């Protein structure tokens, strides 16, 4: 007789550990595929999973096996046209039908890629591996700013306003049952005996009196059990716990003057999206504020931010001023983790650059967790870059980077957020 065992409810992930081993082993190749994907993908679907392909030869497990050539004699089924001694032309593609499977796959699929899917989580893990939010540790305490009151069971003592009536009465009922049920049983028993004695033809006066006394005593004791006791009272308990603010706001600042063409904006957009994804992994709520500017700054929505074109000169400080104002109005820095990324092609009115530097230095940088400036241009740096460069030496959480092509975005992003880079700069 056989045993039947239902294994369907057993854990499914028997191979998970082996899968992880595989990912671990080919991390460098997979990472490469992932960073390639960042620049290839369209911007909108950046946070789904990713198809990863690795050249098959990199992951093959070599064994000794026979190669092509030599002299073989292979039996096949289904002869429909041949007789002994027939000559046939060798099929193209080497061995073809003449050889076993091993060889056929050798010449046929040898260079194929091993393609597989990684989940969104795995993808983002790889994408942001080794990256840390700059200054996160230093500001960790700042994050624990709010307290939240929550119910934490019941207690036996408390203020009357916290009394839980239902719970208390339940306790009272339970206590009364516990204290009286034995006596009630006994009472019934005695009453039954009394009935018997009374209905008996013989006289049992003595016994009857005795029983009646006992019954009276029991009734008295049952009555003595109080309806509600201090012992029954239950009070709702409340406790406070600290809630780290999971709120972050990200300011995207971009120059939209005539010199910024659509391709440049796209590059900036990819950078913003990377930053956004990265922030969402750390914070629950991430607000995004778009500020675009030419000679004047304006808060806009995403569509307008990326796709409308304006002409005119460039005054960067206008955007910084607007940002400062928005922070003052809506995002007090003790409640919000403020990040900012500014993209520009480096054009600015020469007179304006020192004032940008000053606004940043005195007003913005003390408020924000991190401020990144990326310059997307193939030309020489101009005054803004030089001004900003001076600032990086004073403020460790201010960084500037230069991007030339789409391929630079991810490496630059990694450089900006590489773990411990903040610390190093702090030392310098």
């Amino acid at each position: 007789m056989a045993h039947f065992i239902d294994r369907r409810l057993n854990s499914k992930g028997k191979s998970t550990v082996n899968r992880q081993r595989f990912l671990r082993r080919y991390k460098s190749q997979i990472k490469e595929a992932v960073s390639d994907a960042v620049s290839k993908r369209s911007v909108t679907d950046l946070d789904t999973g990713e198809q990863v392909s690795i050249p098959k030869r990199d992951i093959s497990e070599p064994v000794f096996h026979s190669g092509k050539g030599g002299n073989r004699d292979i039996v096949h089924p289904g002869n429909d046209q041949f007789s002994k001694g027939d000559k046939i032309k060798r099929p193209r593609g080497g061995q073809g039908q003449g050889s076993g499977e091993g060889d056929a796959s050798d010449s046929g699929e040898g260079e194929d890629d091993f393609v597989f899917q990684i989940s969104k989580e795995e993808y983002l893990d790889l994408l942001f591996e080794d990256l840390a939010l700059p200054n996160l540790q230093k500001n960790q305490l700042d994050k624990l700013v709010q307290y939240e009151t929550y119910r934490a069971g019941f207690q036996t003592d408390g203020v009357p306003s916290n009394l839980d009536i239902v719970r208390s009465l339940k306790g009272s009922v339970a206590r009364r049952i516990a204290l009286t049920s034995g006596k009630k049983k006994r009472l019934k028993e005695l009453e039954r005996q009394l009935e018997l004695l009374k209905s008996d033809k013989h006289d049992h006066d003595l016994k009857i009196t005795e029983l009646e006394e006992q019954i009276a005593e029991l009734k008295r004791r049952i009555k003595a059990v109080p309806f509600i006791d201090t012992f029954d009272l239950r009070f709702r308990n409340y406790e406070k716990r600290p809630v780290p603010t999971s709120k972050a706001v990200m300011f995207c600042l971009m120059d939209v003057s005539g010199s910024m063409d659509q391709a440049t904006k796209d590059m900036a957009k990819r950078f913003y999206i990377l930053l956004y994804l990265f922030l969402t992994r750390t914070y629950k709520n991430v607000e995004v504020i778009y500020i675009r500017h030419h000679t004047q700054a304006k808060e806009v929505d995403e569509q307008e931010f990326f796709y409308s074109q304006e002409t005119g000169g460039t005054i960067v400080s206008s955007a910084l001023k607007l940002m400062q104002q928005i922070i003052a109005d809506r995002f007090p820095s003790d409640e919000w983790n403020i990040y900012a990324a500014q993209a520009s092609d480096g054009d600015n009115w020469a007179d304006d650059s020192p004032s940008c530097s000053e606004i940043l230095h005195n007003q913005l940088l003390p408020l924000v967790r991190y401020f990144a400036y990326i310059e997307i241009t193939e030309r020489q740096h101009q005054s803004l870059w030089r001004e900003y460069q001076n600032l990086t030496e004073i403020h460790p959480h201010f960084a500037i980077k230069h991007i030339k092509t789409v391929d630079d975005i991810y490496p630059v992003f990694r450089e900006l957020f590489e773990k411990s880079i903040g610390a190093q700069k702090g030392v310098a």
Partner: protein
Amino acid sequence: MVVKKKSKLLSDGPDWSFELLEQYEAEIDRVAKHYGLDTYQNQIEIITAEQMMDAYASIGMPINYTHWSYGKKFIQTEQNYRRGQMGLAYEIVINSDPCIAYLMEENTITMQALVIAHACYGHNSFFKNNYLFKTWTDASSIIDYLVFAKNYVSKCELKYGVSEVENIMDSCHALMNYGVDRYKRPQKISMQVERERQKEREAYLQSQVNDLWRTLPKIKALDKEKNPRFPSEPQENILYFIEKNAPLLEPWQRELVRIVRKVSQYFYPQKQTQVMNEGWACFWHYHILNHLYDEGRVTDRFIMEFLHSHTNVVAQPDYNSPYYSGINPYALGFNMFMDIKRVCQNPTEEDRHWLPEIAGKDWLETVHFAMQNFKDESFISQFLSPKIIRDFKLFAIKDDEKDPFLHISAIHDEQGYQSIREKLSAQYNLSNLEPNIQIYSVDVRGSRSLTLRYVPQNGIPLAESKGEVMKHLHRLWGFNVRLEQVDESGKNPLIASCPPANEQSEMAI
């Protein structure tokens, strides 16, 4: 029987329940006993598709040590399954005692019955009775051994690091096919003894190895001719040789080599009996379920669904069909066993001439005899009848590299029967399939380099991967490794080495 027909009819589902499975299993068991099938106790486990893929990934075993290649296999299977490029097997059965069989929950009751008859009685009795399995595997200890192996490997990973262990395992896997004793009978060892002995071995082996090298300088005076070659005979079991003789391996590394070697040995018979094993299982699911139908235990609907699946399983696409990928072992094996039965019951003149030993004998005894005492190679050369050759329309193509044309060397006619039979048999000879590579010598007094020899068959060269495999061998051996090809001229040219030949000579200087 016909009288009781109605009362005994089993439900044909199509959904299954555990009670129904038990009823079917009991009936199948009864019929199997009637035909004299001797099996291990069955343990039947119902699993989901995902668990089936897990089982695929760990070479079908319910438990196995951790290795990245199983993860790769899993990812591959999952990808193919998700895209609908492949279906999953209806079952997996493990050569263990009790015999564990996995059934997919998606199967209908008909499929479950088919699978129970096929795996739990067909394969199971084959595992228990075929001489190769009896000699090479110990069904009662395999699960215990794998538990031991899994724990040992994970212990080593904790102690020495995942990468260290992975390196050794990779190298062993590369040589897995050369970790088999083809002639010696491995000893049976129980779980406890294995564990105790492993500790002893660790200490003992290490001292043995050091000794080997320490004693050598004394015989320096002897001239080369008189020096005994080490090893004195060529060694086919490369992993065994490594385990016992590699100079630099740590004891735990030797144990890992041993684990891979043992697992390889366990699977060795399965490679050699694919046609027979599948044929035997198909033969019996066919007979058992038809017997139940003849008795009136199963419905018409049941038997039609069964025949539909059965026909798909034993179909053989022709050489020019897009579905052709070699000879289907299910088809060949099933038809050969059916043919043996036919020859026993209704032999023709031709059969009396070709198969005189079995023509007209008791068919049940004969098929059992055939199952017990052969492997694919010998089974085909013994029992492949002209009728099968005609039915399959077998023909042989000769493919000589030097010739611009392919030649048809034999077809299914009077002159070709013998030749087809020999060629097909040779095709299942494992020694023809796996390149013949043996350890030839170790330079014990010099560089300690290890020399292997490849003996080509029919001038077939080794594939390019040999260079990579030699790197793995080098990792295990720790000193230079060389691979020579034996040729008629006696020059035996070097075809691969690690480190590569030019560097080696530089190092010698």
